[in-house]
């Protein structure tokens, strides 16, 4: 679209200015707390106590970071092993395992269902799956947490890392709709041609269609990875003996006054924990944000 060809009137300029002002105001309000945290993470406790909005006398003094890195550990009373201390390395490993395994299972479950409903939509089973998915998206299941906890305890997946991560994936939600739409849009000619050459259904799926939707799979996986890396509620509710970094930083800051950590040291801990997902996001931003389109709860 060539903007130069069309002259914008006063109303358009006014609309852009008003919305632009809102955008700038929102950005400023959004950034202020993060910038404040970053600045104060280099400050000394003395300066902070005098004025929480003072600037550090010595910029890029990483002593708070070194302290936070060493002090970022939490003690949890586990039923099996008693009191266990988890340091930043333990929590990073749990974060990684949870993020990778959970995201892989979720992406696989929803993409396989998307393939089944998109490419084999003529079967009643596929139609039923899609209809149930639409129902689940709008059906509010409130108050199922007690039952869910009882079920996981009965199945011995409660507070049991690997078994918990491998179960409970029925692939429903927006991702199924996205994958179904993506697979449906791909022509069936590839499948027919491959099958005439002797390829089976699994070969067609994994070697022809999945590579075609790889950007969508990758963006869903990356977004899911970031979400599961940051998922503290999972550990609070189902995996209390396997704290990830998000769960760990919560307890670190809540115990800060008990152990005598200063606010700048606590804020440095926040920045340390924020680094991995920030790097991942910066590298994958374009891919993720360009592939996120959703529409059509009516099917």
């Amino acid at each position, binding site marked *: 679209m060539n903007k130069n060809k069309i002259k*914008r009137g006063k109303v358009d300029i006014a609309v852009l200015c008003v919305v632009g002002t809102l955008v700038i105001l929102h950005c400023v309000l959004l950034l202020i707390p993060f910038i404040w945290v970053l600045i104060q993470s280099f400050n000394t406790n003395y300066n902070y106590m005098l004025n929480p909005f003072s600037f550090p006398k010595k910029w890029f003094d990483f002593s708070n970071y070194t302290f936070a890195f060493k002090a970022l550990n939490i003690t949890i009373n586990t039923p099996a092993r008693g009191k266990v201390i988890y340091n930043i390395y333990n929590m990073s490993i749990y974060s990684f395992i949870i993020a990778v395994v959970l995201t892989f299972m979720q992406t696989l479950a929803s993409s396989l269902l998307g393939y089944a409903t998109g490419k084999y939509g003529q079967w009643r089973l596929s139609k039923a799956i899609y209809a149930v998915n639409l129902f689940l998206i709008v059906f509010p299941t409130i108050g199922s947490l007690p039952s869910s906890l009882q079920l996981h305890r009965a199945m011995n997946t409660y507070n049991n890392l690997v078994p918990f991560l491998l179960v409970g994936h029925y692939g429903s939600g927006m991702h199924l709709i996205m994958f179904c739409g993506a697979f449906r849009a791909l022509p069936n000619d590839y499948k027919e041609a491959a099958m005439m050459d002797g390829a*089976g*259904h699994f070969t067609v799926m994994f070697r022809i269609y999945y590579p075609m939707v790889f950007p969508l799979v990758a963006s869903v996986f990356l977004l899911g990875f970031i979400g599961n890396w940051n998922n503290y509620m999972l550990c609070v509710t189902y995996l209390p003996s396997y704290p990830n970094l998000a769960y760990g930083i919560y307890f670190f800051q809540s115990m800060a006054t008990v152990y005598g950590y200063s606010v700048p040291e606590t804020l440095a801990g926040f920045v340390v924990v924020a680094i991995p997902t920030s790097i991942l996001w910066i590298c994958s931003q374009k891919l993720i944000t360009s592939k996120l389109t959703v529409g059509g709860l009516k099917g």
Partner: protein
Amino acid sequence: MNVKKLTTFFDNNKKKAKAKEFAFLLCIVIYQIVNFIIFYVAMNVNTVALTFQSIDKKTGAATWVGFENYRKVFLTFTESGNEYWNALKGSFITYAVSWLTFPVGLFMAFYVYKKAFGTKSFRFIVMLPNILSGMLTGLMFKRFMYALPQLMKGFGFESFPQLMSDPDWTFFTTIYYGIWSGFAGAVIYYGNAMNGIGDEIVESAQLDGITYLQEMIFITIPMIMPTIATFQITNFAGVLTEQGPLYLFWQYNAPRETYRWGYLIFQRTMKTGQSSYPEVATIGLLSTLLWFPLTMLVRKLFDKLDPMTD
């Protein structure tokens, strides 16, 4: 006879091919179906069963009590100043505020769609709360809010309230946090949907002299209505499950004036333990039975609004 044999041969081959296709389909969906049966169907059946039970706090033994839990819940609702009404009020106000901010989100998405000044930076900044994790964002916000009165003193506001602990302000703070951190979804999803609008439609309208406002009302919104409908319907469905940032800010000890229905359920389950499961299951089931028909009504409303159905 040869023709008959040939027809039988092709029919058998067709049946084999169809059987293979169905077997493949079953292979790729069976894991999800089994998980659905166990972790959705069985779980919800167990929720219903829980509503008719009482669980002993010490032994964990479950006993059948009939409709006793329902009676207790209805009685609690009739008590003045009870937590339930507080939590419902909090959830409804939060939802009403989301409707007030919805046009702002749409306008911001439109601004990004038009690739106006600073949109690349804006897209990155607005996603920050999602990138850094809800936990970190909430904790940073909380720390900043605790320090804010000191900053405002410097600007001459000597009696600036402590927004995280003053009962007159805590609910507002949680609402503000939701707005502050929540525009990312609108900007990204609505923005991407707007990018799917054909350029030729917009260009021909612009040649006819359409303004941005008219373009947004008569072209953009109708064309992205399926995306808007999807988000608004799921938003409505989630009104009674949404917890807000209450656990982030106060763990299980949030001030009563900030309660949401989702937080009440979560807090009761995790803080009180197994003995509260029947009560929580009962209020959950009753709110599901109330909210599901309303969600379907909202969906029907959006079906009427969507011009694609005409």
